[in-house]
């Protein structure tokens, strides 16, 4: 008979997390806990130079002196830092020359994630780096990029082959002392992606990293460093998934972007870490520090679609240091069931004629909490700075929360700042209109939500936009009520 929201709810609650399967790869895992010995173990295991070990040990000291932040609008059981294994590498450990050598299990994983490596290689020309439990396992398209002088490799490889670049830029955008999780990451990060685009080079393909936490009882602490030299351009994508587990897994990454004069970086994320089950058990704690620095005429654009994680704490930011530089932040964050997200951006205007745009679309359903937190700061010397911010929240249930905390600080009389925010319920009249035209409620919600998030989804590269749209619909299917 009548198919009601309640039917839909039951059906979807029984639908398991689509990406929840574990790969059976024997791990090379460090004993639980964090102390100087563990740091030395990680560093030795990775055959790192002394300066990097020193960097890590200093970070450990800094971290030990800091307290875990609690200002975000999230509440969760604080991770037991001594119960986490800080190193977990999937075997085989040997360097992989090509994708053909990748463990077929991992390739199968990629396919189940909806990324067929072969297909991507053939059709879209995306160079992909796979990072499982913080260890990079495969990087495609290396030779082709090499011809242009583009370096795209795992962080460990970069330390071995391009130590001067790593040493020069590591920690320059996100210093070790920046915050609790950045300090932790600086001490224990195991791998990640590294990318360098030489002067005047336009990277001919999307660079992409897929992250996955696999081993149970591990955290993922990857480090991404992306340098766009003068006049270069790169578009970089990252995707994240994790298997379904009853425990909370910790993901504390640091991403640093450097856009030199006239360079442009477009950084897109589709984050779909395991969000926990419908009772709020399990799921990933996603505590990430992402920041970019723009020199003269440079541009950094962050686009994110956040549908996963039990708790998210993430503010991709831009330091607009150079004159005429541009920062952009486009975000869709969806929370359902018991998920909590506190996300937003910081736009720090230092240079003259700097411009920033913020578009944030939050969608809360179930009993979740979704907060936008952002800072727009116009420094004294930032003549003619411009900012436009729009933060909208859409509410899909009477037990969820949507919060907006924008900080707007202006110290210059020539700045123009505009901030708008709205919070409203999903429109019943819109749903009825759709139904009258023969569009079922479920489809109608999908249409309306995608329409609502369109300004952000449009900023994603094509192949990601499709995945993101699908994710939005899946994440919200059982949500109106």
């Amino acid at each position, binding site marked *: 008979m*009548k*198919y009601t929201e309640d039917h839909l709810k039951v059906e979807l609650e029984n639908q398991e997390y689509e990406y929840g399967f574990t790969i059976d790869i024997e791990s090379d895992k460090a004993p639980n806990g964090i102390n100087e010995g563990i740091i030395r173990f990680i560093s030795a295991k990775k055959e790192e130079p002394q300066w990097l070990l020193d960097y890590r040990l200093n970070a450990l000291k800094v971290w030990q002196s800091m307290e875990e932040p609690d200002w975000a609008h999230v509440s969760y059981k604080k991770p037991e830092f001594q119960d986490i294994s800080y190193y977990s590498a999937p075997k085989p450990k040997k360097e992989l020359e090509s994708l053909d050598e990748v463990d077929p299990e991992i390739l199968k994983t990629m396919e189940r994630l909806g990324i067929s490596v072969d297909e991507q290689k053939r059709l879209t020309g995306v160079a992909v780096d796979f990072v499982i439990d913080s260890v990079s396992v495969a990087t495609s398209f290396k030779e082709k990029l090499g011809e242009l002088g583009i370096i795209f490799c795992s962080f460990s490889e970069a330390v071995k082959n391009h130590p001067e670049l790593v040493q020069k830029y590591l920690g320059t955008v996100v210093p070790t002392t920046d915050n609790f999780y950045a300090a932790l990451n600086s001490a224990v990060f195991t791998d990640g992606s590294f990318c360098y685009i030489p002067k005047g080079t336009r990277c001919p393909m999307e660079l992409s990293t897929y992250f996955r936490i696999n081993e149970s009882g591990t955290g993922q602490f990857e480090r991404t460093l992306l340098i766009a030299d003068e006049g270069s351009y790169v578009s970089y994508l990252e995707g994240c998934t994790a298997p379904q587990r009853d425990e909370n897994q910790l993901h504390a990454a640091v991403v640093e972007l450097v856009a030199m004069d006239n360079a442009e970086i477009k950084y897109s994320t589709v984050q779909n870490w395991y969000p926990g089950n419908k009772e709020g058990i399990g799921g990933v704690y996603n505590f990430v520090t992402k920041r970019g620095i723009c020199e003269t005429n440079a541009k950094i654009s962050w686009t994110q679609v956040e549908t996963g994680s039990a708790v998210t704490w993430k503010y991709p930011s831009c330091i607009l240091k150079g004159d005429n530089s541009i920062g952009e932040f486009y975000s869709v964050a969806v929370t359902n069931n018991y998920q909590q997200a506190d996300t937003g951006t910081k736009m720090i205007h230092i240079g003259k004629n700097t411009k920033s745009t913020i578009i944030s679309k939050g969608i809360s359903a179930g009993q979740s909490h979704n907060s936008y937190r952002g800072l727009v700061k116009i420094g004294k010397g930032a003549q003619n700075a411009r900012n436009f911010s729009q933060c909208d929240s859409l509410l899909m249930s009477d037990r969820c929360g949507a919060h907006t905390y924008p900080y707007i600080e202006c110290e210059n009389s020539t700045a123009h700042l505009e901030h708008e925010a709205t919070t409203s319920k999903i*429109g019943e*009249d*819109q749903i*009825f*209109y*759709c*139904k*009258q*035209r*023969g*569009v*079922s*409620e479920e*489809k109608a919600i999908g*249409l*309306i939500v*995608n*329409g*609502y*998030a*369109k*300004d952000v989804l449009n900023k994603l590269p094509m192949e990601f936009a499709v995945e993101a749209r699908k994710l939005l619909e899946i994440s919200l299917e059982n949500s109106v009520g």
Partner: protein
Amino acid sequence: MSTILKIENLQAQVGDKAILKGINLEVKAGEIHAIMGPNGSGKSTLSSVLAGRDEYEVTNGSATYLGKDLFELDPEERAWEGLFMAFQYPVEIPGVSNINFLRTALAEKANYFKKEPLSAKEFLQTVKEKSALVELNDKLKNRSVNVGFSGGEKKRNEIFQMAMLEPTLSILDETDSGLDIDALRIVANGVNTLKTENNATIVITHYQRLLDYIIPDFVHVLFDGRIIKTGGKELALELEEKGYDWLTKEAVAN
């Protein structure tokens, strides 16, 4: 001629307030019915109840649509079965293009009848033909549903959607409100062109004006939740001339 819709003793309320107090109406294939009445007589309630808006509670009576109990169907099932309502205030849906919206609607309908949806090519061909009918600008087709449309464009968009969905029964709810004479002519022309022997139209309006262009077979006067008089097209002209008072006074007296 076969019966499309049969309404018997329909009563409905919003909250505790009774609005429809016993409506009887039969609409057959090939007919155009006009429902007229002063403000607050229950015209919009009638169209909302027929389309299935859930603020309205049917307390008594029945509506049989193509042999089925209309009130057993969800709004989207009514749409799939060929019931179309042109909204008095078409709703804006930001970010959803008109084209994508219609394509989804048609695909869902095809799915209901277990048919293959139109191919992209066929679909675009149909869009081209049907939009010419209401002189709808190409740009509007790709814009978000009704967002930034003028009043007239919204109403033309409703008729365009009607043309695309090929309904059996169309209910035009105050479609003439807010239209200038050119837009009115375009809208009416669209409706007339879509008329066949197999479908029917209910035109709900306050003014006689629209009925100069869409000629009704029957005119019903709705007052205080009941149809107090039914006549031919000449009744509309009489109402134009004399207003509603002579009828409503009579009704109150009775």
